[in-house]
């Protein structure tokens, strides 16, 4: 794989010359040794001065942070950037129409690996061409600075060499819990439940259920022990997948590879296997004691309910920590990896990369590359972390090594998302990360699984029947 190689001759030449000019202009001081190099050539960055780029993104915190701080890019390149932030479904629709229009207008695409990259990989440019082009700046610190699992999951599809996107954000599901309530009731819970309920990677999903039920019955501070993002939507698939993997189930054979690199022909689904059915049975059982709002909540609504103080704990996206710390729960919440199951602890990763519309003219693609390099640079990611419009979730290892970022892992923190780092850093390890299948027909498969789960939760189908029907739906979608 390209990321595994060391510093190439081309990289060295670039870093010692014009490429470093850009890196220096990016303000990488403090991020590495490159900053000591001089800046001799702004030309590499300014060659498309006066151009306007259109960037389409899901309405996420990193893009909000970038939208609020575009001046450095304009100063660096003279390029204007128009940003459209949409709900993901609308984004997919707009991208599909744009790449088929014959007159594309979107330059930079928020390439969700599953809903955009897999179905539209053929319409995305291979970023290796730009990264290896002497007349363009390369990725500062190299591709190896991206967290490896994320580079593969966000950047590649089917072919382990082609690079379609640079990792841009990394929301990951973790266990958020009311530390104040666990402190208050911990001893009592230990006595009643017969185990130490302190959230840790040793707690199982079955114990999570017991803890949630205990809160339902014993704590007045919250309405329910837990809530789920179980609306008939993408969020339901995400929420269930954590349990599915923990119980040893998976969507396809060789699920790790299908999640990491993806596959055009994933083969038959295995959702009807005993482990998947067992996971579904547990998930149904968990929802029966969860807040009744769960079946109408997506990830945003669940987070709002948690922040409103209705729930003692939730499986939640780690990038919501900034909002949690800014709410009335600030300082009262703890963060841990999700509970474990008979097989492992798995945390759904929902990251995305930035890609370039391959249908564009060459110059437009090259200008878009400048934005990709800037937007995913360590300095921009650090800036996003400090942003007062929500904060980001860096995808680069070097950012997490910065002293100020390390310091922010402890309260008081001016980068609240970093409070979750001890939990997510373990979740991103290859054996823990939860990667949904990256297949061309994922949008259809996704709809199948969350619809069947919704029917199961509504009592229309048994877990066994729902998983059997989901398997049939997957196989039909994938032409098996």
């Amino acid at each position, binding site marked *: 794989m390209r990321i595994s190689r060391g510093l190439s001759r081309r990289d060295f030449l670039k870093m010692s010359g014009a490429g470093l000019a850009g890196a220096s202009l990016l303000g990488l001081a403090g991020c590495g040794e490159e900053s000591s190099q001089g800046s001799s050539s702004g030309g590499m960055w300014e060659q498309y001065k006066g151009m306007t780029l259109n960037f389409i993104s899901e309405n996420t915190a990193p893009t909000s942070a970038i939208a609020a701080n575009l001046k450095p890019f304009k100063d660096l390149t003279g390029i204007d950037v128009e940003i459209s932030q949409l709900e993901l479904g609308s984004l997919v629709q707009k991208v599909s129409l744009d790449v088929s229009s014959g007159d594309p207008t979107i330059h930079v695409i928020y390439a969700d690996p599953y809903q955009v990259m897999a179905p539209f990989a053929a*319409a995305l440019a291979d970023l290796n061409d730009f990264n290896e082009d002497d007349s363009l700046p390369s990725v500062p610190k190299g591709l190896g600075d991206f967290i490896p699992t994320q580079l593969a999951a966000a950047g590649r599809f089917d072919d382990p060499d082609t690079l379609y996107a640079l990792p841009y954000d990394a929301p990951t599901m973790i266990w958020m819990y009311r530390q104040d309530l666990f402190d208050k009731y911990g001893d009592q819970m230990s006595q009643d439940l017969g185990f130490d309920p302190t959230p840790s990677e040793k707690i199982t999903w079955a114990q999570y259920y017991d803890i949630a039920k205990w809160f339902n019955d014993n704590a007045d501070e919250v309405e329910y022990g837990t809530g789920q993002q179980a609306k*008939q939507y993408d969020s339901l698939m995400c929420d269930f997948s954590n349990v599915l993997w923990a119980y040893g189930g998976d969507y396809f054979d060789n699920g790790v590879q299908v999640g990491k690199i993806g596959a055009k022909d994933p083969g038959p689904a295995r959702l009807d296997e005993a482990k998947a059915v067992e996971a579904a049975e547990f998930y149904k059982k968990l929802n029966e004691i969860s807040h009744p709002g769960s079946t*109408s909540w997506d990830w945003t609504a669940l987070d709002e309910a948690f922040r409103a103080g209705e729930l003692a704990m939730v499986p939640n996206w780690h990038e919501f920590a900034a909002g949690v710390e800014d709410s009335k729960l600030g300082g009262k919440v703890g963060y841990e990896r999700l509970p474990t199951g008979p097989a492992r602890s798995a945390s759904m990763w929902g990251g995305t990369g930035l890609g370039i519309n391959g249908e564009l003219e060459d110059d437009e693609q090259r200008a878009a590359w400048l934005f990709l390099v800037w937007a995913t640079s360590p300095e921009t990611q650090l800036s996003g972390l400090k942003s007062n419009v929500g904060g980001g979730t860096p995808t680069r290892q070097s950012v997490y090594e910065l002293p100020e970022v390390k310091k922010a892992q402890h309260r008081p923190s001016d980068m609240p998302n970093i409070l979750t780092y001890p939990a997510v850093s373990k979740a991103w390890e290859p054996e823990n990360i939860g990667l949904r299948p990256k297949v061309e027909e994922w949008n259809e498969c996704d709809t199948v699984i969350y619809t069947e789960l*919704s029917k199961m939760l*509504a009592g229309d189908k048994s877990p066994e029947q729902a998983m059997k029907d989901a398997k049939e739906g997957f196989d039909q979608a994938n032409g098996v």
Partner: protein
Amino acid sequence: MLLPALLLLAALSLFPFFYIIWMSFNEVSLIGGINFEWVGLQNWTDLVTDPDVRSSWIVSGIYFIATVGLEMFLGISIALLLHETIWGKNLALSILLMPMFVAPVIVGLLGRFLVDSTYGLYAWFLDRTGLITWEILGSKGSALLAVILMDVWEWTPLIVLIVLAGLSSMPLPVLEAAKMDGANYVQRLRHIVAPLISGVVIVALLVRSMDAIRYYDIIAITTNGGPADATKIIPIRLYETAFRFQELGYAAAIGLSMLAFSILVANLFVRILKQQGLAR
């Protein structure tokens, strides 16, 4: 003389219409420009055998009858009430018409906020009074009822407006003569008002029916078709097929079936108008 108008009509209506028919017999790929692969009747065969589409038509039928029925009943009732009102009629009418001017997507957002269990005013009230203690959008029956009522809230004013226009154009001497002959309100309503306004009522019914069958916004923003497909009406299924699954050929077939349904409904109402001598 007519040629420019015909060309414009062809460009605006006929070309897209025939294009969609062509799409429905093809598998359509978007990447790298639009491409067609002839599949014959496959999409149409799928349309009549797909249990998911059938289920969406059933939900659509319930949604259609409930929204149009409630809107007609409430719209006519409110219009009759307003017609008899002497003081504050214009003010009442202005307030009543307001929902109609709100974008459907905003109605959906508003509805979602009002029935959300975390911060919704209606949810709080219904919970405290014990009327509905469960999650409104999280349960099949109440979710469907909620989206129906959101639609009714928005579009009943349109029926009021149309029917009120019909009531205002009734010949007063006929009504006054009936009153002098001793006809009570119900008798006047049944034997004079109803026949006089039946034409506009059918027009209102036609307008709302055509709209209801292709309704999308409120459900997309509130329930996304869930829970358990309880609110997945056919336009939601069409959107999903076209823009999530990228099956544009199949989506074209679904869209054409919606068009056929609309034409059937429209023809039914036009026939009624003809029978009454109100249309040629």
